[in-house]
């Protein structure tokens, strides 16, 4: 039953460009998919390790800028030395973008997981802001507010088949879909493994996790690296699809969008970011017909507060809980809270 449902969903997603004729809606689907990848990466940190990254757009933007720069080429002066970089093909620059973001995730994790609490949040916020200021000011490298334009699309060189560039909307849709499925599988495998169980254990009770021999900082840093790399991959895809990158990509509001997607869908569940991402990917499309951007943001903010008050666990657990209660069939729905290994202190606390 569940397998059939999954197959149906995949079939629906795989054939979407064939029956969806509206190019604008297809564009919305692609961008939504890219943000779903970013939300999944955030969920790995926020949902499974309990660490809130409020600079996730920093990783996203690093991925976008790194892949854009390696793909378009640049020359900069650093202390009198001129570095010239010739353009690289789109597939490689995608990997560079992913790796650059992952490296940043490693450095940030190493730095801020020395202490717990609000520090990781503040460090990630600051990191995104510093990166934005650099992107605005280092005009030699990033063109500043003038933006990097003419980014070549993602391209694959297949031996014997020649190069294929993902230039059309439909091909970008499939590229995004493949990346989204790959990210989903990566997160799923990671979370279901020993590493994932260690992460949940330290989220629920860190001292207990330490006492059974889990190297907490190591797992937190690992989660930060994977999460940042996935966000960077999403950013690379975004840059290669939109084909223009400017410092506005670092706006805090994008991080907020990702957080809302994860929280609404259900943090710490595999399906949560997908559900939340799809909802909030399409809300602006509907909203923009009747409300100004400011009013939309006010609705976003208000919704965020309401969700924390009314559905602290998000939509997915609430829906699956409903199905379980109604039909008594646990197979219908994913487990309400990932792989729960220890009593959940955060849920037991009075709200």
């Amino acid at each position, binding site marked *: 039953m569940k397998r059939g449902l999954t197959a149906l969903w995949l079939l629906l997603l795989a054939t979407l460009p064939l029956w969806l004729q509206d190019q604008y809606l297809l564009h919305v689907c692609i961008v939504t998919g890219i943000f779903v990848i970013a939300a999944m990466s955030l969920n790995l940190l926020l949902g499974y390790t*309990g660490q809130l990254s409020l600079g996730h757009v920093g990783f996203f933007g690093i991925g976008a800028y790194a892949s854009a720069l390696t793909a378009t080429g640049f020359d900069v002066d650093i202390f009198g030395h001129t570095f010239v970089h010739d353009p690289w093909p789109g597939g490689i620059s995608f990997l560079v973008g992913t790796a650059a973001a992952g490296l940043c995730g490693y450095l940030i994790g190493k*730095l801020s997981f020395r202490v717990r609490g609000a520090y990781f949040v503040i460090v990630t916020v*600051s*990191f995104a*802001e510093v990166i934005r200021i650099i992107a605005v000011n280092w005009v030699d490298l990033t063109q500043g507010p003038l933006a990097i334009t003419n980014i070549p699309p993602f391209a694959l060189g297949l031996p014997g088949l020649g190069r294929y560039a993902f230039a059309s909307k439909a091909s970008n849709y499939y590229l995004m879909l493949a990346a989204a499925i790959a990210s989903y599988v990566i997160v799923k495998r990671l979370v279901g493994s020993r590493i994932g169980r260690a992460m949940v254990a330290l989220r629920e009770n860190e001292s207990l996790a330490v006492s059974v021999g889990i190297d907490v900082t190591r797992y937190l840093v690992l989660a930060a690296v994977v999460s940042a790399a996935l966000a960077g991959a999403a950013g690379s895809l975004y840059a290669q699809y939109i084909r223009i990158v400017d410092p506005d990509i670092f706006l805090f509001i994008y991080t907020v969008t990702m957080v809302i997607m994860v929280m609404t869908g259900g943090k710490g569940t595999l399906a949560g970011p997908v559900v939340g991402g799809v909802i909030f990917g399409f809300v602006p499309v509907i909203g923009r017909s009747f409300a100004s951007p*400011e009013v939309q943001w006010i609705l*976003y903010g208000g919704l965020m507060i309401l969700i924390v008050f009314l559905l602290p666990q998000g939509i997915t657990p609430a829906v699956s809980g409903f199905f379980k209660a109604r039909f008594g069939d646990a197979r219908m729905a994913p487990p309400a809270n990932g792989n729960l290994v220890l009593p959940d202190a955060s849920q037991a606390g009075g709200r």
Partner: protein
Amino acid sequence: LAQLVQHLVNAVILGGTYALLGIGLTLIFGIMRVVNFTHGELYAFGAYAVYWLVAGAGVNFFLAIPIAIAAGLLLGALVEYALLRPMRGADIDATMLVMIGAWIVMQNSEMIVWGGVARSIETPFPETPLAVGPVSVSWLRVFAFGVALALIAGAYFLINRTKLGRAMRATFQDSDTAALMGVNIRAIHTATFAIGSGLAAAAGALLGPVFLVEPTMGDLASLKAFAIVILGGLGNITGATIGGFGLALVEEMGAGYVSSGYRDAMGFAIIIAVLLIKPTGLLAKAERVA
């Protein structure tokens, strides 16, 4: 050398208002364990309140500032009452998300009410600056510094010498025991948040006339306040005061001798440096005042 002295003077004057921002934020974090993302919006609110009172309602500049601070106090009390009181006992992340939501709502409301255009506030101060030798400072900045110092002193007095301050310190040390001793924790939380918000609004009311007033001014103010608070250690009032002056010094020196484009990045460089050297804040060993 004259240039150096000028930078130092500017840093000290800016530092007073930064310290106000930091004290407000660290007070709220220390006593309520809330990472207050609306702090910058209260700062922007203070600045806009002065702008509106002076330009819109024709109120005297010197009267507009205390009114703006009082309005900030009230707004803070309202936010605490409506959003944080129901969240007591919830984990720090959930409260943080609520505060982020409140921040977005407040910022965009400001955008709608006051428009996206940057505005400047008319002040009654003379154009000619106060010149001492080669160093010159505008009268407005001197005034802002004086008021900021008075407010810092007031905050210290309130916390260390009054009954309310004693209840706040008790709540900070152990809120359960304080409650058992008859301290009304709810009232203390509301008062703390209101005072912290009032201080942020005061910083905005004082810096608004110095710089321009714009709807996104709160974002950087929030981030700077975080930098100040980390510099001094979360929850440490003396640390926040010193952190405020420290950040202003680094910013002025950075803007003067490195690059003015990276002025606002200096605070974050500080955060990273502090976390590398002494993660609990530079004053962690010192006596915690609040």
